[in-house]
């Protein structure tokens, strides 16, 4: 299983515009290429998850995630904000890098948790935030994932 396989075309945005936590979640959901009414529900579910505790894990990285019936398959998106967004992260610092994961409640292959685990592992690796800051294209981003064997 390679992480890159879960990114649909266009699901990487290296120049997010949003400046607030809510807006950035909406902008990330819009990268998934799903219909508008499903987006609203996903946004609400992501928010509900954030209410349990921020998914901003420090080092400028957040991994918002949820399961919902409106997701018909496991999908992942990545977004980068140069300015950073206050995401109520564990370390209180602004978040620049966002990995969004959504999955259906019942998923035959059950890859949701492994994918979440891989992203968490990748995020912990030394120097990863510098690399994420310097990539210039979607291809470079995907190559970075390959390089880290995730």
């Amino acid at each position, binding site marked *: 299983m390679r992480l890159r396989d879960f990114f649909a075309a266009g699901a990487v945005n290296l120049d997010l515009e949003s400046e607030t936590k809510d807006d950035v979640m909406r902008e990330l959901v819009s990268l998934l290429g799903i219909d508008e009414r499903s987006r609203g529900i996903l946004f609400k579910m992501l928010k509900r998850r954030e209410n*349990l*505790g*921020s998914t901003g894990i420090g080092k400028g990285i957040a*991994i918002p995630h949820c399961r919902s*019936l409106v997701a018909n398959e496991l999908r992942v998106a990545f977004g980068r904000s140069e300015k950073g967004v206050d995401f109520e992260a564990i370390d209180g610092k602004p978040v620049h890098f966002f990995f969004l994961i959504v999955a259906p409640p019942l998923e035959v292959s059950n890859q949701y948790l492994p994918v979440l685990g891989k992203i968490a592992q990748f995020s912990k690796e030394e120097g990863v935030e510098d690399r994420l800051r310097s990539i210039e294209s979607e291809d470079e981003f995907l190559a970075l994932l390959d390089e880290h064997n995730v």
Partner: protein
Amino acid sequence: MHQHLETLLEIQDLKSQKTELQDTETERQVQEEVFNISIDDALDALDRKVVEMEESLPAPIRSRYNRLAKRYPRVVAPVIRGTCYGCFVSVATAVSSDAGRNEEIEYCESCGRFLYLVD
């Protein structure tokens, strides 16, 4: 989307989130270790939210919801290519082609679950 269908979907999503936290060891580990979540607090918060949303449903929908919830873990079934994914029986064409797409509350004639049309 129909307002109450949206609420039903949300309740269901919250309930599955709760089940995951209760029953899946890996899920608990990830939430505790990666995100520093207190599982007990999270379960309480989810319970409270579910009750609050259940109470916001109008009486007729709520009584069907209660009846279904006693029998099935999931009361809303997705309809994919004309089939109810709760009972795997084809749903009436009129329902599966609902012009407004989820603008009405529809039920499966076979199992009674609320239906959510998936694109």
